[in-house]
């Protein structure tokens, strides 16, 4: 039990409850179940892509290209839908995942084979993919009436009263919980991030792991691309611009160490949820729109500092405990 309290996830959870409580004092409607469903809908895509970002950051990498690859795969399937409305929705979904996997694997190859540091690789592909979106759509948009009803309606179509958007994100969370905790490759991802030399000694293939995380991350991003354009019923060349920073922020708030080796799915999901609540709360309690960005920045900084300070305190406590045992 005491371990539970010491966990970052737990303190983040408490922090979230605190904010929810504070906001609901001012705006009781914040507590309505509908509002939470909306927040879930809003954070579904963020938490999915943040999980992709998580597995990359855990290996000590970073992916700045998620916003661009999301836009590229989203634009591709939107155009596909516009010109071939007959293609069934599940094929569209598969294609969006496939495009994402392709874009991710390009990153993965550049990082693992060409040995370009992840931050540079994805800085480059970020511009390349974003530019390709523009080339692909020739500057024009795909808008609501150019999409088929099933395409547009997919994220909202509900099953057991919950939208498929949320279902998909739950599915991704579960799949990746299993992958990260119950598969060898999943654990090796943590191994690589924790200690590269040690993981070499136990025979983990670093290149393979790097390739896998970027590719998988790309796959999620690709799927998110479809969900994004379908949900907002618009594919534009500016789609998801700056989204990479949001996913990184969700990870950092969720307690993922930017240096690699640590970070949990639950933490990231909470981190995304936290961002969603902050966004939602800021609009609900009528904070001036001009304050939003400053408050977000402040909260990110605050969360990071608290995380670090708590971590250091825990380590001190651990040391103290050990010295008393003697």
């Amino acid at each position: 039990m005491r371990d539970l309290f010491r966990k970052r996830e737990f303190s983040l959870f408490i922090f979230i409850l605190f904010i929810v409580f504070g906001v609901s004092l001012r705006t009781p409607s914040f507590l309505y179940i509908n509002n939470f469903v909306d927040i879930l809908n809003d954070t579904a895509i963020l938490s999915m892509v943040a999980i992709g970002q998580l597995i990359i950051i855990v290996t000590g990498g970073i992916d700045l290209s998620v916003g661009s690859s999301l836009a590229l795969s989203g634009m591709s399937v939107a155009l596909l839908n516009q010109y071939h409305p007959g293609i069934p929705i599940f094929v569209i979904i598969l294609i969006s995942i496939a495009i994402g996997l392709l874009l991710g694997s390009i990153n993965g190859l550049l990082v693992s084979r060409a040995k370009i540091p992840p931050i540079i690789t994805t800085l480059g592909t970020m511009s390349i993919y974003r530019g390709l979106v523009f080339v692909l759509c020739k500057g024009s948009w795909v808008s609501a009436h150019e999409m088929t009803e099933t395409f547009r309606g997919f994220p909202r179509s509900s099953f057991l009263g919950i939208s498929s958007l949320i279902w998909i994100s739950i599915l991704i969370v579960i799949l990746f919980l299993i992958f990260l905790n119950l598969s060898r490759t999943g654990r090796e991802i943590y191994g690589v991030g924790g200690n590269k030399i040690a993981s070499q000694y136990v025979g983990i293939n670093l290149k393979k792991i790097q390739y896998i995380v970027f590719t998988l991350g790309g796959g999620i991003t690709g799927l998110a691309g479809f969900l994004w354009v379908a949900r907002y019923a618009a594919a534009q060349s500016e789609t998801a611009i700056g989204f990479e920073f949001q996913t990184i922020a969700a990870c950092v708030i969720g307690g993922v160490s930017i240096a690699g080796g640590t970070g949990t799915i639950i933490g990231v999901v909470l981190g995304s949820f936290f961002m969603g609540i902050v966004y939602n709360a800021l609009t609900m309690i009528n904070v001036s729109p001009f304050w939003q960005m400053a408050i977000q920045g402040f909260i990110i900084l605050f969360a990071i500092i608290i995380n670090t300070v708590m971590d250091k305190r825990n380590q001190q406590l651990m040391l103290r405990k050990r010295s008393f045992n003697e």
Partner: protein
Amino acid sequence: MNKENRKISLPNIIWQWEIILLFIFIMVVIINSNLSPYFLDYTNLMNTTFNFIEKAIIALPMMFVIICGDIDISVASIIALSSVFMGMASQAGVNTFGLVAIGLFAGSAAGFLNGFVITKFGIPAIAVTLGSMSLFRGIAYVILGDKAFTKYPIPFAYFGQGYIGNTMIPFELVLFLMLAIIFGIILHRTTIGRKVFAIGNNSTAARFSGIPVNRVRLIIFTVTGLCSGLASILLTSRIGSTRPNIASGWELEIITTVVLGGVAITGGKGNIFGVVISIFIIGFLKFGMGLINIPGKVMTIIIGLLLILAIMLPQLIERLKPKNSFGKVKK
């Protein structure tokens, strides 16, 4: 390969990298002048420097930041923040001299805040500046809202629009070249530079050797803020107005420039010549592409490709070299 050859290997690599960059630069000039008759025109070339010198001025301290093994993605937001403070002061009737002081001070203060949080709490720079990126620009939005500051004293316009005497050489360009010389001397010829390289290569050993690692990093972040403030003065002066969204997206362009200049993102390696050449490569490349009216979004593809290809190039060369029989012992 024997020891004798490896002796000068590091300068060798840098030398090679500069050769590559210089070569790319020449290619850019040749191709551009073939594609457009307007490229090789003294006035045009001078005037186009206005468009990248402000970024270049931040690229100089950014080079120090990255050599130290850190990164600062809040620089563009610092530009917005300083510009807003200058705008406020200008509305209140502060003169040109005062505005410059305020711009520099606001930039340094923001940079100091970054450095302070990074060194005090030991948080990776990328995480801190990710937060401060929103915070600084956010403050600019808070102050400005949907307004813009447009009233600046007339002499203030000189910084971003003026030329040196009757020549067509922009004041900005001269200022940048002077700063490049100063930063180059600091990096390669002074104890500060030596310390920066030591920190970037191995911050633990540097600390054990009595180098005040955190103080040096704090100073570098503050100087980065200072230079962002300076860039803000030039930009504000050049466009004569302040909006909270100015310079958006510059942080990544600046980092791209520095990395293309051969500064290792993992720290410890870099050279002023590489960065200066890289600044002009990207600047002239964009200008040349602009002359044949390639859309900006297509330019980003080319710059992205250039970045990746250029970074891959030394490895490709390495791979083509006959394999020596020695393994690697690197940790």
